[in-house]
């Protein structure tokens, strides 16, 4: 990799304890950026044309959220959204594992969409009341978009889960594939607790009961069981990732890194 000039500076953002807000914005921004990149992988490959369009639209919403959040995170350190998206290495990304998981078949993607959008909606509904004006603005806008994403995922989860034996089996596999990573969604740490105490961030631990009730309700209606699997794999917020993120970043970053001196795109 030829991460030249901004690579080190951009990496510092994740490690700078002084910039709590920047670090928090970076987490939410990385979640949105990585999932946008994943969903974009469905373009021209979805089971039907309408889903090509739907997943691309959802990816675009997430990319828009990511751009504002990365721009904000970078503003504390004199870095641009592009510096942060293209010139950080894997260990400096602080997204959740769930969003970096491979797309799998359509049912795996729908399972991931269901689990993540249900989480993201609860998060942004609360973050819309943040004492930080920019975070509140991003969240208030995202709530409307993510409500739609969740609705899309719920409809498909019901249709596949309560569909044929084949679609049911695939949807069950999809939920089971994603389940080990859901514990991380609600993991709290000193950074979010400090920011939550200041009224800036949402402590994700608080979202767990409502999320569990909502997802459990959807799965029951879709005739799917809540997986009896441990959900303890974590580390994304500390830059420790699954093997899949590196490949995703290679695809996302290689063009920009091949032309590091290009001024604008």
């Amino acid at each position: 990799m030829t991460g030249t000039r901004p690579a080190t500076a951009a990496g510092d953002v994740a490690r700078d304890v002084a910039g709590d807000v920047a670090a928090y914005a970076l987490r939410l921004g990385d979640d949105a950026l990585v999932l946008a990149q994943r969903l974009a992988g469905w373009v021209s490959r979805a089971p039907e044309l309408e889903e090509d369009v739907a997943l691309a639209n959802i990816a675009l919403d997430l990319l828009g959220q990511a751009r504002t959040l990365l721009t904000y995170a970078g503003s504390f350190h004199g870095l641009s959204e592009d510096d942060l998206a293209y010139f950080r290495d894997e260990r400096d990304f602080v997204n959740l594992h769930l969003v970096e998981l491979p797309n799998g078949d359509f049912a795996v993607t729908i399972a991931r969409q269901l689990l993540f959008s249900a989480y993201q909606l609860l998060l942004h509904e609360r973050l819309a009341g943040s004492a930080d004006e920019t975070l509140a603005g991003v969240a208030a806008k995202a709530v409307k978009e993510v409500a739609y994403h969740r609705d899309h995922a719920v409809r498909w989860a019901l249709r596949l889960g309560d569909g044929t034996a084949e679609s049911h089996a695939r949807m069950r596999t999809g939920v089971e594939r994603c389940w080990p990573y859901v514990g991380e969604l609600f993991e709290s740490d000193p950074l979010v607790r400090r920011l939550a105490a200041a009224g800036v961030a949402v402590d994700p631990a608080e979202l767990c009961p409502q999320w569990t009730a909502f997802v459990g309700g959807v799965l029951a209606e879709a005739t799917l069981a809540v997986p009896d699997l441990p959900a303890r794999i974590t580390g994304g917020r500390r830059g420790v990732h699954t093997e899949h993120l590196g490949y995703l970043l290679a695809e996302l970053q290689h063009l920009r890194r091949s032309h590091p001196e290009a001024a604008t795109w």
Partner: protein
Amino acid sequence: MVTAVGVEQMRAAVAAVPDPELPVLTIEDLGVLRGVELDGAGRVVVTITPTYSGCPAMAAIEADIVTALDRVGIRDVSVRKVLSPPWTTDWLSESGRRKLAELGVAPPTGVVPSTSTLVALSVRCPRCGSLRTRELSRFSSTACMALYRCEECLEPFDHFKVH
């Protein structure tokens, strides 16, 4: 420089900028244009807001605003993007709704509910007026559209979603 052109004239020039994706509508019709003002230094500040977070038309709209003001002789322009308050289809003007219908796009039905609960109302076919329509896909050609079909005249059409 600005004194030669009144604020009203500047506003009119900016308000007439068409939306790049739905050129039948202006950015004022859409509610994307939030303000045209002079700052203390006599610089023109135009405030716009995106329909959706990822709206890819924002850069084109910004460039078109600069061009529109240039045509009335104003060069010192700053385009400000804001997210709050979040854009809503409630801001679509009456003329905007009419133009959409004439274009064959069903305008948003009703106003935005106060919670994030999604409510589906009947959508009237912009071609034959029938309420016997069916949603084919929650997403369509742009982020703000859903794809519908009329069961009466059998034509597909876009519906500008309540947002």
